C-alpha cells in the first residue's frame, strides 16, 4: 500500500490517508478498506465499531502502520484483525 493512498471503509463513512503501511490488510469496521467504495456496504462488526475521529492518526504497536483519518465514521480501524490505536499527543500535565 503506497503512502498517500486514500482508503474508504466498506462498512461506514470512514476515510483514511495511508501514511505508512506494510503488507497486511487494512480494515475498518471489520471489513477490508479499498480505494473505491463497494456497491454493497459491508456489515459493521461489533468489535470494530468504536468509531474514527477526524484528524486523528491510528497506529499499530510495531510502528508499521500509520493512518490519518480524513473523514470520520462509525467503524474502527484494524490490520489483519488487530485493532489500531490512536496516536495521541502525550502532553505534559498542567493545571490551574
Amino acid at each position: 500500500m503506497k503512502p498517500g493512498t486514500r482508503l474508504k471503509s466498506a462498512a461506514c463513512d470512514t476515510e483514511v490517508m495511508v501514511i505508512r503501511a506494510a503488507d497486511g490488510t487494512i480494515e475498518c469496521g471489520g471489513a477490508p478498506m479499498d480505494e473505491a467504495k463497494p456497491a454493497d456496504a459491508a456489515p459493521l462488526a461489533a468489535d470494530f465499531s468504536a468509531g474514527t475521529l477526524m484528524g486523528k492518526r491510528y497506529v499499530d504497536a510495531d510502528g508499521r502502520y500509520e493512518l490519518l483519518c480524513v473523514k470520520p465514521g462509525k467503524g474502527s480501524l484494524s490490520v489483519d484483525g488487530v485493532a489500531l490505536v490512536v496516536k495521541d499527543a502525550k502532553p505534559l500535565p498542567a493545571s490551574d
Partner: protein
Amino acid sequence: MQRRKASHRRRAQQLAGLIVGTMRRGLPAPTFALKSNEASAEAEIRASRALFAEDFIAITEFSAMSGDRQTMATKVMQGVRVLEVAQFTFTPAAGAILADWGADVIKIEHPVRGDTQRGFLNMGGVQLDPLRHTLFEHPNRGKRSVGIDLSTAEGQELLYEMAKHCDVFLTNYLPQVRQKNRFDVEHIRAANPNIIYARGSAWGDKGPEREKGGFDGTAFWSRSGIADCMTPPELPGPLSQGMPAFGDSIGGMFIAGGISAALFHREKTGEAAELDVSLMSTAAWASGANIAQAVETGVITKNAMPSSGGGAKNPFMGNFWTSDNRTINLCMVSPTGLIRDTFEHVGRPEAADDPRFQDVLSLIEHSKAASDILVAAFAEKPFAYWREHLKTLKGQWAPILNLLELASDEQALANDMLIEVEGADGGEPLKLVRGPVQFNGEALETTRSPQASEHTEIVLMEMGVDWDRIEDLKSKGAIA
C-alpha cells in the same frame, strides 16, 4: 524521471481530496511555492512543480465553486503565512487572531507531547474533555498543526525551509531555548531575511529577567499593580485573577496588532521588524491610566468593598442591589440632562423636583441623599424588572451578568460575539468567542483547532518536501 513525474501526479491526486476537505473547512487556499533541496534535479523539480501546480489549481477552482466562505468574508490577512512556535495561550492567541483574519497559521508542536496547553485539563476544578478542549480551542482555532522536534538538526533544517515560505515567525519560547534549539531571530533570519520576528514573553526581551518564564497570573496580574488595585483594602489579601487566560487573551490581541503594523511597515518600506509584547507590558498598558495617575499624584486608588449605592461625589455611579440580590450598575460619569430621567425611571419622579438635585453641582453636593433614594428604589423590584424597565433609560447602565448570561445576551449575539466550530469528537459544535475586531460587519467563520500534528504531511508537501524525505524524517522521530 517519467516514473517520478507519475508518482508526483498520483500523490497530488491522492492528496486532492484531502486538500479540498481542508479548504472546505475554510482554511486559506494554500499558495504553492514549491521548493526542494535537491539542486541536482532542478529540471525534474520544475516539471513536478508544474504538475503539482496544475492539479492544485484545478483543486482550488473546484473548491471555489463549492462556495467557500473565504470567497464571502473579508479576510484582511489572506495570503499571509505565519509560522508559530509557541505554547499556552498568550502568544498562540495572537496566531488565532491572525487566523480569524484569514492568515494561514502553521503551528509547530512537539511530535510526542504537543503543545503543553493540551495537557491543561483541570481548570478551576472543572475537568475538560481533551476532544472538547475549550482552553486549547480558544487560542488555536483556524490553525494547522505540524509535528516537528526542534531539538533535532533535521527538525531545525525543516523549520528553516518552512520559514522561507512564511511572512511572520511567532514564538514565546524563552531566549535560552531559542538559542539552544537554534530558532532565535538570527537563525530564522538567516533562512528568510524578510520575515517578521514576533516574540511574546512574560517580562520582556530585555533586562535581568528576560530568561525567566511566567504566566498571566504572575506577569499580568500579580506584579503589575492590578491585583493590588482590584482588591479592597478591607480584604485580608489580594484577589487572584479569577479568569483563566485573561491577561493572555488581551495580550495576544496586542501581539496581533503589532504584527499587523509590522506587515504594513514591511509593505511600505521593505523592512522586516522584530517585535516584543510581554504580559507585564500588556498589564501596564491596560492599567496605564491609573499608573500615570498614581505616579503623578502619589496616590493609589483601589476598589472599594461591594455595597449598594452611588459614589461619594456622584450618586449615579455605582452598583445598586435589586430585591432578588442581583445588581444593576449605573455609570453616568456626566449626569447633565440625566437627573430627571433617572429619578423617573426608578419610580421617584418627585426627587427630580427636589431642589437638592436640580443640577449636577447640587446633585454632587447631596450625593449621599440621592444615592439613598436610588438604593431604596432598586431594592423594591427584582432584577428582571429592572433589565426590562431601564431599556429606555437615557443614562449609561448595565446589568451585572455571569458568563452564561453573556453567551445568550441578545446584544452580544447580534454582534456575532460567539462563533461555532465543530467538536473534534464529532459531537455538538463548540462555542468560542470571536476576536474583538469585526470587518465590514461580517460574522466570523473559522475551523476547530487542529489535532496535534494533524497536518504534518500536507503542509510539508505543500512546501515541496517530497515523500521519501517525509518518511525519513518520520523514522528519525524529527516529525510526526
